[in-house]
């Protein structure tokens, strides 16, 4: 799909340059054929390929190994300690016994799951319109300054470590929320965590969406203008629909990043083991809970296992996101539903 998109825009170019490129390749292979031996080809062709294949296999094996490891550890809660999956997912009684062998506590992770869903969902709701707007701005409205200034600026955001986001959230956002809304428990809240997450995923969604918008063939825009569209009509009736799978990919990547973020959230969410009553109350989420307690629990005990189960859940969720991305990008712009 991708290549078809590209071809569409650069057909003339590709056709124009191909003969020259072919010629160059031909003459190069002639030179090699006259001078080089079979051993040369073997080294050149198979050695490189072998290394690449090896690396690829290693990654696959590593991923599988992590998955299997998480599966073994994470299912201990259900197999060894005989809790039900329903209890884990929907109960909010979190009181696992923290000894190596003891059991009988509660492993309800609903508070953490809800905290993760709520903060990520809110972050997405807040930032998606801004991200798409920014992507449109840097590609369609001001492509020159977009390329030169806006894009590098946005990309710098990606590289800022999450502890910095958390720290700024802690020193700026949390006091601000406290001063403006005067919540009972201080400024640590779902709202603070959501805003921090929103800012963190802004560059991800924006850059991926901008790439998708930019790869929309110019021919579509010209057709639109030729039919008497305004610029805005070209953008929202032609360009955005044509790049919607890329934009969705950006949103899911952003969501995946938000789900996996532990540190920055942990710093502002208040780490309170209770469902939030409103946006201004503190709560906790999966990643922050794992990060806070993983080192303090007795290995192989009920509490430790329950944390592993939460890690497994995160792993499954990120797998789901990846799956969704593949599902969406498999449906490129060349297919249209109904």
């Amino acid at each position, binding site marked *: 799909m991708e290549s078809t998109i590209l071809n569409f825009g650069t057909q003339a170019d590709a056709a124009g340059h191909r003969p020259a490129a072919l010629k160059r390749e031909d003459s190069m292979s002639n030179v090699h054929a006259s001078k080089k031996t079979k051993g040369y080809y073997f080294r050149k062709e198979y050695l490189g390929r072998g290394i690449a294949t090896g690396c690829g296999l290693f990654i696959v094996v590593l991923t599988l190994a992590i998955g299997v490891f998480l599966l073994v550890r994470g299912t201990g809660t259900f197999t060894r300690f005989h809790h039900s999956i329903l209890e884990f997912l929907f109960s909010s009684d979190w009181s696992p016994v923290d000894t190596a062998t003891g059991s009988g506590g509660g492993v309800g992770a609903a508070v953490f799951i809800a905290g993760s869903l709520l903060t990520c969902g809110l972050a997405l709701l807040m930032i998606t319109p801004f991200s798409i707007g920014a992507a449109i701005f840097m590609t369609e409205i001001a492509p020159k300054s977009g390329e030169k200034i806006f894009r590098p600026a946005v990309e710098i955001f990606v590289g800022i470590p999450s502890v910095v986001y958390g720290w700024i959230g802690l020193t700026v956002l949390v006091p601000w929320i406290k001063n403006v809304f005067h919540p009972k428990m201080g400024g640590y809240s779902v709202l603070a965590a959501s805003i921090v997450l929103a800012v963190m995923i802004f560059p991800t969604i924006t850059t991926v969406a901008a790439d998708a918008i930019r790869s929309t063939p110019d021919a579509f825009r010209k*057709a639109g203008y030729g039919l008497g569209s305004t610029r805005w009509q070209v953008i929202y009736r032609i360009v955005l629909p044509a790049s919607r799978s890329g934009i969705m990919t950006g949103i899911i990547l952003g969501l995946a990043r938000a789900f996996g973020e532990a540190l920055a959230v942990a710093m502002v969410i208040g780490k309170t083991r209770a469902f939030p009553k409103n946006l201004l109350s503190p709560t906790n989420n999966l990643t922050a809970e794992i990060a806070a307690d993983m080192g303090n629990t007795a290995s192989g005990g009920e509490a430790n296992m329950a944390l592993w189960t939460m890690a497994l859940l995160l792993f499954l969720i990120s797998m789901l996101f990846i799956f969704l991305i593949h599902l969406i990008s498999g449906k490129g712009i060349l297919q249209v539903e*109904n």
Partner: protein
Amino acid sequence: MSEQAKTKISVQDLHLYYGQFHALKGITMEIPEHEITALIGPSGCGKSTFLKTLNRMNDLEPNVRIEGSVRLDGADIYQDMDAIELRKRVGMVFQQPNPFPKSIFENVVYGPRINGIRNKAELEEICERSLRQAAIWDELKDRLGKSALGLSGGQQQRLCIARTLAVEPDVILMDEPTSALDPISTGKIEELAMQLKKDYTIVIVTHNMQQATRVSDRTAFFLLGDLVEYGDTQELFSNPKDERTERYITGRFG
């Protein structure tokens, strides 16, 4: 110009510059209504550039400067008209078929939709009428919901013509509309153009002399940004007044 024909577009001393480059050097030309006017000339002589000045598609390019005037039914399109409104009256068909990545139906009703028509029955009626006018209704009527990108090149081009017709323009500009198509599709588009001139004024760029003689009533020969010769097609091909025209149409020239 045949005496009875009314002038649709009147171009007076039109100059166009791409930055420093003088691409059109004072074009003066009257395009009659309900006729097909062909623009011919070697590559790079400014045919597409000229065509695009007629519906202000050049406004989209950076660093373009235009002098002189283009009048549509007497109104100066650069002074007295909004480019968006103009393009609804002067539609364009491009060299490469460029349907939107939407369904066939959505392609055709794109124009009516942006003009504010929401009523489904009305849109369906426009879709059928436009596709019939473009002589492609029978081929497509059972697959209106399918993606337009699944059509053949020739079908796509006729769909693009239907999409332009749905806006109900007065003038249709076609920039080498058949150069990407096989002879059968080309024949269909040519036939279509001759049908459409009853209701529309058509300006067509072509590299194909036979095509110009087959379809057009009048022909304009461009060379290096100049309009060298303009007149009745039969006349221009059988009895060119300018030596450069003669050399070009007999194939002894770029």
